[in-house]
């Protein structure tokens, strides 16, 4: 069908609103966006190729460096894959500590995602409040693992460091503080009239569209799809985890869903700390040969690792599928077309929380 297009406007790859380089090309008529297309490939690292031939103690660090914002889940999914391949079991205490670390990572990732959205709609005050709150979550992780970003916390058969009672008390105090701040800023976001005009009804992703694009994570859950890989994870099943779902499917719903998930994560961490069994944190066990697909719920959605290893636990073949791939697809093909103002393109793109580093590995 012939279409009248005024101009094709490129946004990026260098753009003040993008955290990472990507180019969004919008075909517009007037202010209205008719269709959009995303160009990627500005930061290919080739990590999967570097991983080949290496044992877990090297691949673990490479897996974390796929994405700096959600490094814990990359480590967790890879290590769980190696455990599944080699038949290693994890002590209960280590399994709970893994969930604590993973949920702390989810909190900081969601806070960063909401920061970038607020920053994109030029609500810089709220953005900076959220970034400041995120520092506290980072400090919690630093106290447990020793570093803020690439923690390297999990190893096959357990975790590297135990949680001390003193650190646990400090962690609980920090969680209370986090809850207060996130509650305050979440309410600011929810009730802000100017935020609502920029967010409500903008970038709508219908449930059917989300299914067609196979959206995952908060993007899918904000459109009414109750999908979460944590539902199938044994430790999360013990904690009686149920996903949070919203049905609006607009920018506002996606950001509020992340705020709600932060509270859920705080609850899961508290539950873990309450139920934390005594015992060892490492069970031992060597990695062996096998082939598996390991899945986990990253802050942005389903992350899966295909792993094939040799008899000494070295990686023969590995393929990483990150959640941002379908989410970017959902964003460009379903959220962006029909956006009534070009000024909303950046905020719609950022609200899907695309992680380009994950995407291009």
């Amino acid at each position, binding site marked *: 069908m012939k279409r009248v297009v005024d101009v094709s406007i490129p946004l990026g790859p260098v753009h003040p609103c993008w955290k990472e380089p990507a180019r969004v090309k919008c075909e517009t008529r007037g202010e209205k966006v008719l269709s959009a297309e995303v160009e990627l490939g500005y930061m290919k690292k080739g990590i999967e190729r570097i991983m080949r031939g290496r*044992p877990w103690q090297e691949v673990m660090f490479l897996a974390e460096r796929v994405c700096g914002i959600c490094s814990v889940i990359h480590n967790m999914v890879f290590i769980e894959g190696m455990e599944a391949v080699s038949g290693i079991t994890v002590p209960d205490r280590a399994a709970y500590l893994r969930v604590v670390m993973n949920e702390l990572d989810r909190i900081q990732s969601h806070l960063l995602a909401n920061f970038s959205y607020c920053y994109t709609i030029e609500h810089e005050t709220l953005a900076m409040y959220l970034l400041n709150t995120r520092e506290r979550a980072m400090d919690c992780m630093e106290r447990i693992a020793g570093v803020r970003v690439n923690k390297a916390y999990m190893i096959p058969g357990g975790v590297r460091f135990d949680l001390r009672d003193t650190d646990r008390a400090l962690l609980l105090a920090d969680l209370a503080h986090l809850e207060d701040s996130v509650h305050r800023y979440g309410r600011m976001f929810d009730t802000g009239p100017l935020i609502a005009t920029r967010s409500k009804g903008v970038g709508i992703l219908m449930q059917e569209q989300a299914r067609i694009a196979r959206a995952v994570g908060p993007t899918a859950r904000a459109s009414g799809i109750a999908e979460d890989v944590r539902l199938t994870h044994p430790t999360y099943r013990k904690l009686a985890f149920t996903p949070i779902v919203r049905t609006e499917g607009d920018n506002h719903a996606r950001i509020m869903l992340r705020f709600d998930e932060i509270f859920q994560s705080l609850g899961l961490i508290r539950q873990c700390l309450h139920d934390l069994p005594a015992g060892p944190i490492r069970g031992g066990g*060597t990695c062996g040969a096998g082939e598996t697909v390991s899945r986990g719920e990253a802050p942005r959605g389903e992350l899966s690792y295909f792993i094939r290893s040799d008899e*000494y636990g070295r990686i023969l073949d590995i393929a990483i599928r990150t959640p941002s791939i379908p989410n970017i697809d959902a964003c460009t093909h379903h959220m962006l077309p029909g956006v009534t103002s070009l000024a909303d393109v950046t905020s719609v793109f950022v609200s899907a929380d695309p992680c380009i580093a994950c995407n291009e590995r």
Partner: protein
Amino acid sequence: MVQSIFWYLKEFLRAPWIHAFLFAKTAPLVTPSYFREYPSLTEKECTHCFTCRMICPAPGAIEVLQEGGTWHPVIHRGHCLRCGLCVEACPEGVLASGRILQWQEEDRTSFAATFHIQVDHATCMRCGNCCVSCPVNKEQDPQMASGGHSANNEVIMKISSGRHTVIHEERCVGCRTCEGACPNSAIRVARVVEGLQGVAEG
């Protein structure tokens, strides 16, 4: 209008506000004591067992060098990831970083490793560089010269009858010096590491 001017004056002429305005200071940036820094040396003696080199995930981040008759590990900061695995793996406690050493003693955690030498005979040129560069071979047979021939059967590997032969795989410490010395990448050392707890070291 007048009311709001009064409101602002009342708000700003408070002693705490003026004090905060004039003397506001950001808390100084302090690295917490538990931060996993680049490994530093403790006073303990290094036995050059090369465990740190074996476990290090970053290429060229750690070397064990002899200087003035004593051995000690050297961390190359541009390459080090600060993962702390060398600190955990060292059986002598030569390296320290953050709270790792203290926690390790309390929890009795350790790493155990076995090594398997694999040689691809299709690409091996029998140059013997691996045998000559091997630090364990050097201790067993200091006379081993280029070509990798040796009359000593206590070495890990040597070139014997025109073929690369691995004799004592169990003596390998996994330092991967041979991998770096091989011109064809024909030799590979598999390091099978497992994390343990509550097992006596050694």
